[in-house]
């Protein structure tokens, strides 16, 4: 019997945020990231029969998403290559460093290690969030990640402000201990 079962009815609730975070760190555009996540779910649905149950559903969906992201870059690079006009060349000569972008330091440039660490931490946070009760996780995401007002969240979930703070407190405590185990 396979180790993992497949159940597409729960995919959106369980994996959409994780997959979205995975995508947005790689494509940097919200709309594109949403499209890619949606395409991944559709592709997963079509190839459900190929799921052998050896890896978890999430790992399997991530492997589909990776291919979608590669396809996305192939597509935009082929369009971009045709239209690209370089106008940032210095007239001073064709020695090394003639391109203007090479002449200035980029203070915002992060090293590859920083980027990898940030991506992994983001995924670890989403992994810990997926372990919280659904309502608690949703409220925490809205308050902490999306920055919604306390009042807006209270209206959306029909709860009082003190209920909200109790939920936030529980979520923060669970997350802190989960991250301590998995990350720090």
């Amino acid at each position, binding site marked *: 019997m396979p180790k993992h079962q497949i159940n*597409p*009815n729960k*995919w*959106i609730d369980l994996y*959409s*945020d994780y997959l*979205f*975070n995975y995508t*947005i*760190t790689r494509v940097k555009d919200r709309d594109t990231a*949403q499209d890619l*996540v*949606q395409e991944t*779910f*559709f592709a997963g*649905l079509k190839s459900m029969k190929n799921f052998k149950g050896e890896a978890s559903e999430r790992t399997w969906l991530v492997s589909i998403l990776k291919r979608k992201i590669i396809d996305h870059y192939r597509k935009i690079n082929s369009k971009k290559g045709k239209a690209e006009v370089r106008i940032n060349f210095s007239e001073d000569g064709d020695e090394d460093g003639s391109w203007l972008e090479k002449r200035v330091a980029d203070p915002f440039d992060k090293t590859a290690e920083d980027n990898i*660490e*940030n*991506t992994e*931490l*983001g995924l670890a*946070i*989403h992994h810990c969030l997926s372990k919280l009760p659904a309502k608690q996780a*949703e409220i925490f*995401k*809205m*308050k*902490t*990640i*999306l920055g919604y007002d*306390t009042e807006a969240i209270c209206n*959306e979930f029909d709860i009082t402000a003190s209920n909200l*703070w109790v939920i*936030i*407190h529980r979520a*923060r*405590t669970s*997350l*802190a201990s989960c*991250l*301590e185990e998995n*990350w720090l």
Partner: protein
Amino acid sequence: MNKKRTLFIACEEANHNCDKTQYNEATIWEKIKLTFHLIYCKACREYSNNNAKLTELIKDPKIDCLKPKEKEKIKSCFEKELLEQD
């Protein structure tokens, strides 16, 4: 009924104020009471440190997630597809 204005608060209230501080929603009076509580309560000091660390971790990698409406949109498209599959 007016709440008694005291500088001494229970750990529960201190944690509540600490959470609100992480979202810049604590009043000055709440912050003062929290700071005073942290002077003599080791457990809350530890909670407060962990809480600040968590805020830093979440801000640093700029983690993102779907807004409820965006998720709803994906969900409704996917549910249509699921029905067609059946």
